[in-house]
Each structure stands twice: as structure tokens, then as C-alpha cells.
């Protein structure tokens, strides 16, 4: 199994979720993060003083999928999450040892 972890622009969340569910993904977990990268935060003025916002709001999507599905998932996220503008984010793939469904204790691919 793979843990696919994607950092995306917040307003792309709905599209990414739909892309994943249409691939048959049954579950995913998101969290609110802030990102620092090539996309520079605006230089803001707060009360007359320059103020560069280095961290920008992003959403992290974590989805665990069976090994065979990982590539499709990565591709789906990449397509749905892309605006072509800097700051679209990254997708990271990690190897997972096990997954367990808390409700039933099932493990492995059944747990997803």
C-alpha cells in the first residue's frame, strides 16, 4: 500500500476529491497546512510597515491506496490540482506497511 500525500491549493480541494472518488477511492484525510516555496507570499503593508507573508495557506490531502492504484491516484491529483501557476503544490508517495480499520480490526487492502 502507498500513502499519497499531496499539498494543494485550498480551492482545488473539491476538484481533487471528486477526481479521487471517481477513481474509486473510498476515503481520504485532509488537514490545513501552510506552505513555503517558490510561490512568494505577497509583500503586505500592515499599518505602514512592510510585511512579507512567507507561508501561504495550503491543504494537505492524505490518501492510502493499494499499490496498484498509486500511479493513477497521483496522476488524478496532479491533473485536478493543477492551475499551471506557481504554488500548485506537490505530491509525495510513501510506502506503507499496514493499514488497519479501527472499527473492525481488518487490515491490509480491506481496511481501506
Amino acid at each position, binding site marked *: 500500500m502507498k500513502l499519497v500525500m499531496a499539498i494543494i491549493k*485550498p480551492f482545488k*480541494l*473539491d476538484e481533487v476529491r471528486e477526481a479521487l472518488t471517481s477513481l474509486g477511492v473510498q476515503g481520504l484525510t*485532509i488537514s*490545513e497546512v*501552510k506552505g513555503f516555496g517558490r510561490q512568494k507570499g505577497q509583500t503586505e503593508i500592515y499599518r505602514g510597515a512592510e510585511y512579507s507573508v512567507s507561508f*501561504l*495557506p*495550503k*491543504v494537505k490531502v492524505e490518501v492510502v491506496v493499494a499499490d496498484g492504484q498509486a500511479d493513477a491516484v497521483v496522476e488524478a491529483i496532479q491533473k485536478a490540482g493543477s492551475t499551471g501557476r506557481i504554488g500548485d503544490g506537490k505530491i509525495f508517495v510513501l510506502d506503507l506497511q499496514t493499514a488497519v480499520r479501527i472499527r473492525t480490526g481488518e487490515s491490509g487492502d480491506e481496511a481501506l
Partner: protein
Amino acid sequence: MKFKNLRFGRSARLGVAALGGLGVAAMAAPASAATDVETAFIFNTLSFLMHGFLVMWMAAGFAMLEAGLVRTKNTTMQCLKNIAIYSVAGILYYLIGYNLMYMDVSGFIGSFSIWSAADPSITADGFVGEEAGYAAGSDWFFQMVFVAATASIVSGTVAERVKLWPFLIFTVVLTGIIYPIQGSWTWGGGWLSEMGFSDFAGSTIVHSVGGWAALAGAIVIGARKGKFVDGKVHPMPGANLPLATLGTFILWMGWFGFNGGSQLAMGTAADIRDISSIYINTNLAAAGGVVAAIILTQVMYKKVDLTMALNGALAGLVSITAEPLAPAPGLAVIIGAIGGVIVVFAVPMLDKLKIDDVVGAVSVHLIAGIWGTLAVPLSNGDASFVTQIVGIVSIGAYTFIFSLIVWTILKVTIGVRASEEDEVDGLDKAECGMEAYPEFGVGSQRM
């Protein structure tokens, strides 16, 4: 006959009848210097209206205080309950409450009827009254905002686990029946007023009554899941302290209306001089409560507890409410400070008794209310401790038992308590289907 001698003890001491005094003044003083009767009528009415809108504003104060002291997941519900209470209280007081309290009071109860205004002194030819008086509607308005305050007190104590509709039904009974009947005993000119019980603006009649009803509710409904586990108290900190602070300031402001308007007249120099004293004492008692709570929490816990400071302000206000006129300013500070001390000790004491009072309303309104009522004889020579105790006990027993019965009936019929799951998930989701702060972080979109 409608008759109110809220200020029975005090007016007897001054040697003039409450509102009659206005007429007397208008007659006795030299023509060039005295306020005429219609002018006094206007001033008296204005006092009810102006002080009335200040007391109305306390509804917002209770809403913010309570919205700030519950957890996020119950905040919408708390806002909803508070606006509902204020609405229900007004309608009920119109339908039956006011007349139960003030119309043809037999000693123990007024009459069951819908209120309507009558102002015989105003005719097509202008004002023909011989005594000043006030517009009947302004009095109704002022009395109505008081009953709403009583109901708001209950809402805070039973927060985070009571179901909406049973709570609203209790509010109907409280504002339509429980409150007005006991109110008739004193302010309606009933038996307690005959006896000389003195409660100027309602430490007992408004605040303790709310506190008793809240206490009965807390007992019948039980503590929040997880609050008392294995003999230990698990605090559940309020989610938004600036809101609670705002609520306290709103209540403080509104209290000038609460106590100042309870002078019931503003048409003579003496009356408005008295209102000035009331403002001062009200303010200083609250200040005393804050300072006492701050010092005490610093000494006891090495930290200053903001929520105790807020409760201290309110306890100071409740304490002075039974007699905001007679004390010298210094005494007012002390009365309020004792209120602040009371609340610092009462809140953990209730916890020890496993009574779960989410916002500390029982400590603030009931216990400090008792203290305030007992403190009346300190400055008001016409009040006696014995009569004060009779008033406290009779009103307390009546309200507590009546409330206990109503809560219990609600419990065994439709149920008063949210399911365990709803309590865990928060009442906002269960009863309102709506989160108070629905957004998941600043950066996120609609999800």
C-alpha cells in the same frame, strides 16, 4: 387595582409614598421652581424607557457571556437559546405574566389575563392627571425586560446538555408563571411587601429566582458527561473569552438601567439625585467585585483568572441590586467585593457538590443574590434581617420546588437531556445542524 411598592421599605423611611411623592413635590414647592405634573410624567416614563432599553441590552450580554463560556460545539445553540428566551419571555409576560404579577394582587397572586395599557390621565384635551405617574406601557416594557433576565440566568447553567425544546417550555413556565407569581408577593404589593421585605431591584426576586430555577435544572439534568469523573473535576474551558468579556461589559452597562430604572421615578430632583447615587453604587459594587476576585485568585492560585474577574463583576452587581440606593459609596464597594469573594469560593464549592453550572450562574445570581438581600439592613434601617430571611427562604423554596417539579415533568415526558452522542458531537450539530465557526482554518474553502 394595580399597585407596586418595590421601594416599600425605603419609601416608608423617607416618609413619602413612592410615586405619590412626585405629586407632593410638584404641589409643595414654589411654583417657579417645581416641575409640573405633565413634565414629571414625561420624566418618569422616560426613565422606564431609557433604563428599559439598557436592560433589554442585557439580553445581548447574557448571550455573549454564555456563547463565550461554552465550548465551540455548543455555541450556536447558546446563541439560539438566548434570542429565543428573550422573545418568549416578552410574549409570555404580555399574555399572562404582567397581570399575574401586578393586576389585583390578592397577596399571593394577581389575575390571569392579557395585559393592556390604560392611561386615563391622557385625554383628547391633553394631560389631565393630578399626580404625575407614568405611561402604563413604559412600566410594562421595563418589567418585561426583567423577566427576560431571569430566564437568561437558567440558560447558562444548563448549557451544553439540555435539549432546546424542553428548555423553551421551561422558559415559558418560568416567565409566564413562576416568576410573576413570586414577583407579586413583593413588587405586586403582596404579602412579602406587607411584611416589609425589601429588594429594590431584585437580588432575590430576579437573580436568585433565576439561580434557583437554574439549580433545579442542573440537578434534574445532571452534569455534563466527563465533568466529574472518579471524584475529580474536569474543567471544560469556555471557547471564546473576549466574547465573555464583552458580555460582562454589556451586562454592567445594562445594570445601570436595571438598578437605576428601579427607582421607578425620575420626575423630581430628589428622584434623579437618587438615580445618580444608584449609578455610583452599582458601578462601585461591580468594581469591588472585580478587584476582590482578581486579588483573591492571585493569592489563592498565583494566577489571575479572567473568568473569575468577570464573574466577580457580575456578583458585585447582583449583590448591590437589593439595595443600590442607601449605601454610601464606600459600603457599595465592600458589598460588591464580598460578592466577588463569594463567587471565587462558590464556583469550586458547587463543583465539589457535583453540580455542573457551566457559566457560574448559580454562584453569581443565587448565592451573591442572597448575600445582597441580606446586606440590605446594613444601610436601610427599615429592613430587618428576619424579614429579609423570610423573603429569601420563601421565594427560594417556592421557586426551587416549582422548578424542580417542572424540570422533572419534562424529564419523564419528553426528556430534557440530549443523547450522549449529541452531547459528544455538540448540540450545534444535533439541534441546529449548524456550526458556530464552520470554517476549517483560514485558508480553506467551503468543504
